[in-house]
């Protein structure tokens, strides 16, 4: 079991494709807590998070043959999670048709290094307090970047938006949180 535990996500997927259920068990355990954390921050402690994450893992298994093991597994399963979270939000309220958002159509000026100053745990905790006040389109990239430690390319693959738009949304989310922090301190 130790040997299989040491395998990479992609190697585990190859075993799952050979019907090795224990490989999926390990893979799912690796991602269960991460997806719960992602969901709780993005959906702001929605009461059905566990059910949604169960759906994510179920869909990951059912659709595993669509995954190309030469690519990274993490963005793939996070993409499934993103879709499930968005579907949950849509059931409860109307979301704009994100395909036609201006920053997806026109964004060019993504700033890749502007967030280097957010290093400390205290700053992250501060950001977490105000996450729920952000719009979903700014909240999600911040959760994925700061708390799930995804890079720009991965966030682009998860959200299926241009890399430059990832930078733009991170910047705007950060500005919104700064404003909220500033108002709180007044």
């Amino acid at each position: 079991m130790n040997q299989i535990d040491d395998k990479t996500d992609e190697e585990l997927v190859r075993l799952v494709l050979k019907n090795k259920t224990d490989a999926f068990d390990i893979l799912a355990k690796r991602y269960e807590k991460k997806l719960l954390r992602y969901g709780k921050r993005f959906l702001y402690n929605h009461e059905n998070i566990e059910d949604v994450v169960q759906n994510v893992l179920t869909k990951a298994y059912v659709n595993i043959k669509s995954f190309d093991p030469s690519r990274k597994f993490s963005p793939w399963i996070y993409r499934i999670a993103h879709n499930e979270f968005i579907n949950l939000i849509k059931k409860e309220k109307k979301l704009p048709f994100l395909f036609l958002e201006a920053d997806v159509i026109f964004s060019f000026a993504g700033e890749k290094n502007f967030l280097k100053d957010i290093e400390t745990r205290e700053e992250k905790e501060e950001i977490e307090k105000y996450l729920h006040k952000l719009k979903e389109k700014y909240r999600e990239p911040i959760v994925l970047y700061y708390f799930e430690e995804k890079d720009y390319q991965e966030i682009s693959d998860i959200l299926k938006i241009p890399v430059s738009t990832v930078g733009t949304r991170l910047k705007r989310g950060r500005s919104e949180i700064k404003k909220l922090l500033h108002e709180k301190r007044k």
Partner: protein
Amino acid sequence: MKKENSKNPITEKVVSKIERGELKMKSRAYFVAKSFLVIGLLVLFSLLLLYLGSLIVFVLRVNDILLFHGIGFYAIRSILLSFPWYLVFLIFVLILLIGVIGRKFQFVYRRPLIVSLIAILVMVIVSSVLIERSSLHYSFFRLAEQQRLPVAGGMYRNLGNIDIDNAHFGVILEKQNDLWVMELDSGERAKLKVTEKTKGKRLYSQIEEGEKVLVIGEMDEGVIDVINFKTIERRSRSNNQRLNER
């Protein structure tokens, strides 16, 4: 499978379902078929886009709409009212559909959408001009005029003979009582009357017999109140004789 404590309750639920056979992986063939469907749709929409784009170029050429440049707002207004805008609308719908389906691919969604849309537009415009030059539409048009084109015959007959209000193509014949007389494409004769609304009166006085002209103005009982006009070089249409030859 060894039972564990409830550190990962969600995983346990899912794995139990797998072991009980309640969850099954979808087959590879399912995803291959889905990919073929997506690619098939993309190809189909792209071909339709090229067809419609080249059809618009055909409409512009066969109706000599490109000759209307520089002839004033009145003529442009007539063209705008007569133009088959539904073709343009269909093109935009297809571009949108291609954009939505294309977002599945990394090389599309990683770039700003405007880049993809501009790339599609440039390809459509270039390809449409090239396809139009191939005489494909003119061949269909001729068949349509001969009532030998099923399904699309009516569409081609309409698109090839767009009636642009108050626009008259023809040849200057002679001057009669200080009024130029022209023979219209339809074979009819009309006199050209200069009014206070006529633009380019100086040029009007320089017209010569035999010149091909485009005249804008309302025609009433064989007299056109000229608003604007221009002398034109009609394109040599080796592949598209103008269909007033009925």
